[in-house]
């Protein structure tokens, strides 16, 4: 059986997709998959994923309905608006929601592990995260990664 290890480090709407798409697809192909969530990648483990947003300010390549100067993008409420618009787009194009993809990952036995150091660093409450997650350090991930055919840092 092939193995894939993913290090998920980002917690924005756009960057939460690649780890979940690749993990769910690899699992569907019969791969053994482990996703190590560290720093903002821990957002992937929140029970409630609705708070995950995208910032137009940090993504100059993001397609906009109308050209928008940077100082406008920085205005209060712009991030919420951009996130809402992207979620609508995702839905209208038949792209799965993050929640849907994560459910499929779990159903297909993708193993999610969380970085204990980050949990301590940001004083996260583990009860905000889904169950079935192991809280580990880098050495645990390396044990899996050392045997993996594919390893990605996202």
């Amino acid at each position: 059986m092939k193995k894939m290890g993913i290090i998920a480090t980002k917690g924005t709407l756009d960057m939460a997709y690649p780890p979940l798409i690749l993990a769910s697809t690899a699992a569907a192909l019969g791969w053994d998959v482990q996703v190590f969530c560290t720093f903002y990648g821990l957002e992937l483990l929140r029970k409630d994923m609705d708070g995950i947003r995208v910032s137009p300010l940090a993504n100059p390549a993001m397609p906009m309905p109308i050209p928008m100067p940077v100082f406008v993008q920085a205005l209060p409420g712009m991030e919420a608006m951009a996130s809402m618009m992207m979620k609508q787009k995702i839905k209208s194009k038949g792209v799965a929601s993050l929640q849907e993809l994560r459910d499929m990952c779990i159903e297909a036995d993708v193993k999610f592990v969380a970085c204990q150091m980050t949990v301590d660093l940001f004083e996260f409450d583990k009860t905000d995260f889904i169950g079935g997650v192991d809280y580990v350090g880098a050495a645990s991930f390396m044990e899996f990664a050392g045997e993996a055919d594919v390893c990605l840092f996202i």
Partner: protein
Amino acid sequence: MSFDKELDTRGMNCPLPILKTKKALADMTAGQVLKVVSTDAGSVKDMQAFANQTGNTLVSSSEEKGEYIFMMKKK
């Protein structure tokens, strides 16, 4: 061509057609044929890649009026 089950993935985008195909095949027995209808242009290459890696056989792959039709035989 005859088939045992049909899966409609019209309107769904990557990777949903593949994930739904995998799920649909799980409920079938060896030798049965699943017909998958998709509107995702990327699924043409992906269905072949899915078959190559899972051992299921992509019996046919065709396009009709912007819809892609796949016949997947379960291993």
